[in-house]
Every structure is written in C-alpha cells, then in structure tokens.
C-alpha cells in the first residue's frame, strides 16, 4: 500500500523529522552529561522514551535499557553478565521466586511500595514475596488469549479455545512465540488448569500443539505477531490480547480480543531491584517512579504494548479512550476467568521447551 503525500505535507514531515533529530541530538547530549547511569533489563514496553525521560530528567540520570522476551532469555543474559551489571530487572510475576532462589534480587522495604493502591488480584504476594520479604512488585498485567480481526472471522468462533487447532481458519492463524502462555492456553483448551500442568499432560498438549502448528501460518515474537495481525497477513493471533490490539485501537478498530469460555492466561510483570546493584537507592527510586500513578499510566500505554496498570490510581492519569481500549471496566470479569502462567520446574521446563521446538519443526 502506498500513500501519496503532498509537497506541503512532505515539507512538514521533513521539518518535523529535522526537529525530532535535533531534539534527539539534544537528548543524547543531555544524557551524555548525566551524572549517573542505571542499567535495567526490561520488557520492550519500558523502552518508550515517554516513560523513561521524565525519570531521567528528574534524577539527572541516564537509564540504559536492554529488552528481552521470556524469563529464560532474561536469566540467560544475566548469566552472561558480571555481577553488578544490572540494577533493575523486569520479570514475569510467576518467575520472581526463581530469580530469588538464584540470589539475584534484593529485598525491597514493603513500606517503599504503594501496595495498598494495587488491584488486589494482582498484588500476587505469593509470587512477589518469600519468607515474609518483598522482592518485587507487580507493575502491569493483561491477558494472553485470542486476538482477531472481527471483520474477517466470526467472533463467536473465538469464544471456544478449540478454534486454535481447528481447520476452519487454517493458514490464517499466527502464534505468539512464547512457549509458556501458548502451552498454558492449549492446556486450558484441554481442561487443564495452569497450576496443575505436569509432565503427564505433555503428550496430550503436544498433540494439540502440533495440530495448531499445522493450521497456523507463522510463529513470531511481539512485533512480527502484531504486524501480521495489523497488516492482514493473518486474522487470528494465538497468545494475543489487549497488549496487541489496544495500542492499535485508533488505527485498527477492526482488531478485537476475547477470553474464551475455557478461560485465558493472565500475564503479570513484576519489577525488582538487583541484589548486586551498585546503586540500590537509585534503582529503588526507579521502581517507585514506575509504580507511581504517572509512571503507571505511561507504562500501561507504552508504545511497544499496552496493558493494565497494577496501580488502580493510574486511572486518574488515563483518558477515557485509553481506559476503554484497556477495557478498564471489564477487569473484574476478566480477572475471574483467567489463570496465571504455568510455573514449571527445571525438568518440566526443559520438556515444555523441547515440545515447543518440536512444534516449530513440524
């Protein structure tokens, strides 16, 4: 698709491009002068300058961000780094204990966090605390379910999880390339709760996983999944949710998502301070900024993907349109019909990852 741009618009675009470049150069110059640096290992939603710059300006600090997808990838990066390289770590809420057991996270004083302001269902004390000590705080949440183009598929079909391995939409399905939520969804489709998922279920899960691969067109990470759905390359995204469609709500109102009758998966990301950080105070300030109503509103509507802020007070900083795109008012029903990610031990995790690679090779 080509767009014709008039000369005036072209000139305006060039001018705005030049202005962006100059502002960028000024920002780089400013960051070069920043007195301190903070290194954060994060999900891509934290890389939005609109989220990070206010903190950088307030504390005269340069925040260096490295993004990753999936806890395994994050832990792999940490294993390849030196102690102290990272100050802040954003991690799947269900994997906080795993990081604590690896002695990676520092205790956060409970009174330093706005826990009372969080939606009660996402405080997740069982995940973010261990032996009475708080190691992380939930910052954002949402759902891995089924996203679709409602002008091209029958929305009623999307209410049944079995659609992801049926032939009806063969060749029109993309799968989000993150094994835990997608295998969790397949499990839900088979009536297996994520908390109960075990090695005995793997044969049944593999069978449906392979059937799903057979009818899917591609398996991709966040950006390629989003692009495939937005450009009409596919009509259904397995593992999608508001995090895929909300950010496109203005330009692509035809995109929708649903939690099927069997339920959906709830993702929740937590933020933590690294134990070996040389700047624990600054790292804590960053966590506090992210958890503030202003930080939460910016994080929930970040350019990479949108999601519900964990802090309910962020609602005051969001517009009605933003809240509608996030389906703010529907959250009680969604929370009731969703489960957390599976939490496999090392052996089961290896089995699940093997099944995922086998599926990719089908």
């Amino acid at each position: 698709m080509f767009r014709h741009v008039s000369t005036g618009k072209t000139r305006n675009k060039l001018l705005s491009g030049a202005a962006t470049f100059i502002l960028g150069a000024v920002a780089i110059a400013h960051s070069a002068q920043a007195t301190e640096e903070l290194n954060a290992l994060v999900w891509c939603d934290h890389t939005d300058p609109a989220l990070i710059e206010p903190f950088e300006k307030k504390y005269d600090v340069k925040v260096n961000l490295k993004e990753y997808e999936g806890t395994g990838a994050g832990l792999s990066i940490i294993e390849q780094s030196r102690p102290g390289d990272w100050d802040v770590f954003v991690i799947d809420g269900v994997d906080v204990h795993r990081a604590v057991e690896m002695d990676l996270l520092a205790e956060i004083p409970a009174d330093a966090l706005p826990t009372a302001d969080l939606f009660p269902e996402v405080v997740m004390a069982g995940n973010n605390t261990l032996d009475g000590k708080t190691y992380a705080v939930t910052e954002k949440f949402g759902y891995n379910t089924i996203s679709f183009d409602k002008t091209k598929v029958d929305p009623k079909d999307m209410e049944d999880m079995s659609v992801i391995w049926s032939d009806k939409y063969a060749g029109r399905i993309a799968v989000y390339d993150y094994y835990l939520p997608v295998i969790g969804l397949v499990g839900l489709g088979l009536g297996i709760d994520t908390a109960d998922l075990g090695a005995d279920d793997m044969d049944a899960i593999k069978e449906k996983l392979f059937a799903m691969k057979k009818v899917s067109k591609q398996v991709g990470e966040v950006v390629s999944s989003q692009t495939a759905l937005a450009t009409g390359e596919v009509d259904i995204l397995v593992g999608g949710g508001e995090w895929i469609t909300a950010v496109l709500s203005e330009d692509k109102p035809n995109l929708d998502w649903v939690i099927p009758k069997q339920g959906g998966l709830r993702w929740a990301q937590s933020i933590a301070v690294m134990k070996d950080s040389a700047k624990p105070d600054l790292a804590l300030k960053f966590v506090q900024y992210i958890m503030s109503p202003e930080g939460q509103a910016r994080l929930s509507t970040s350019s990479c993907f949108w999601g519900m802020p964990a802090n309910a007070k962020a609602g005051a900083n969001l517009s009605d349109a933003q809240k509608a795109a996030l389906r703010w008012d529907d959250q009680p029903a969604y929370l009731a019909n969703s489960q957390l990610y599976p939490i496999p031990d090392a052996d089961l995790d290896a089995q699940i990852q093997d099944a995922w690679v086998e599926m990719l090779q089908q």
Partner: protein
Amino acid sequence: MATTTLETRENRRAWGFVTPALLWTVAFFVIPFIVMAAISLATRKGRELVMMWNLDNYVTFFEKAHLLKGLFVSLEITFTVTFISILLAYPLAWIIAERVPQKWQRMALIMAILPFWTSYVVRSYSWLLVLAKNGVINNTLMQIGLIAEPLEMASTRSATVIGFVHFFVMLLTLTIYANLVQMPPNYRRAAADLGANGFQVFWHVVLPLTLPGIMVGAFLTFVLCIGDYITPQILGGNNELALPQIIMLQLGRRADFPMAATLSIILMGVVTLAYIACARWLKMERT
C-alpha cells in the same frame, strides 16, 4: 655459512610477519574453539553447568528428531540457495565480462553489488514486505489479473531462499567475473578454429576454466548461508528451524551452553566437510 645466516634472517623476518596473524588466530579462534569443544562435553543440569566430560549432547542431537531436522533444513536450504545462485550469477557475470563495454564494467559491478550496501536485517525485512499477502508482488499480480487470491510467499522456506539468493548472487557474480576476465580470449578462438561450436567452446573450455571461480563463490555461499540466523528467522516465519536458529534457542531461552556448543561444533564439522569437498578448487596457488 653466509647462506645459512641469510636463511636464518629470512626465516626470522617471515616469522615476524606471520606472528601477529598467528597470535590473532590462536587467541580468537583456536582457544575459543577448544573452550567451545570442552563445553560441548559438559552437561546442563537444571540451571547448573556440570563438567561431566561425556558425549551425551552429541547422542542427544542424533536421538532427538527435531534437533537433527535442523541440520537437514539447513543443508536443504543451503544447497538450494547455492545452486540457484550459481545459475543466476553465471549469466550475469558472463554478460558483465563479455557483453558490457569495458569502460562500463566497473559501473555494472558496482550496480551488481549495490545490495551489499544496505543493512542485512533491513534487506530481509524489506523482502518480507515485498512477499507479504498485501505486498508488492501479490498486489501487482492481482492488479494485472494473473491471480485472484494472494500467493502465500512470506513466512515460508521459499521466502528464506529468495532472501538468501538475492544476497549471494552478488557474491558469486564477483568470483565468477574475476575468473572470466582473467581467461585469455585466445583459448576460445583456438577451440573455435578447431571446429567447436559455441556450446562446445563453453562446455569444454570456458566452464572448466571458470570452475575455480564458481567453487570459491559456492563455498563462500555455503559457509555464510549455513551459519546464517537472521534470514530464516525473519523470512521463514519460524515454520521450520535451521540449525543456527536452534543454537540461538539453546542460548537465548535455555542458557544451555553445552548443547549450543555441541550444535556449533556439528555445524563446523559440516563446513569442514564442505571445505574438503571443494579443496581441490580452493587452492590459492596457480597451477
């Protein structure tokens, strides 16, 4: 005596020239290779690296069909790409060397290698846009009425092959062109004088003499293609995994360095076999 002293001095000078490259190779190839080989004999237990010194990872590779398939996928893609690239590059090199006036040959070569000037990643994503359902090719074919429904080209092995061929045709064109322009024209004239027709001249004289250029280009294509991660990752849509993609999964998702090292050693073994197969044509000295 004087000759011996001269020889010693010459030897020292030669070692002086060679030593930096030798040290570089030892530091950045030999030692890392030994470390990688040693790690491939270790085992990953949970999140711990256990130095057990066994061949379990190699056995696992041959036992698990999805890992072994990665090697076959890589080989199939690589052979296809190499074959198609040779078929396309040879006529292109021939036209540049034989049909383009000498003063324009340099410009023609620059035009041929222009794709090298853009980022490899950007070029792969561009192909994704070209091959997509709503991409340039499908839109054009549908507008001129050749197809009613868009062809499925993106996120397929064909897309991966197209992306690779676009890149490697340029490489092969250069190596074949270099061979063609070095070939004295008298050889072809002599064959023609002896009664050979155009095809016979090509088959019995030109092709054998340009075989070294083809094989050098083919070997480089093979090595670069079989070890590439980016193109199959972007254009293949994860619908099958080549060996480098599986290596990345071991590193990125499982932090399973022993298995990643094992797969890398196997990949190196394949490249070594390819070298042995092509060694006859890869000799640097002229005969």
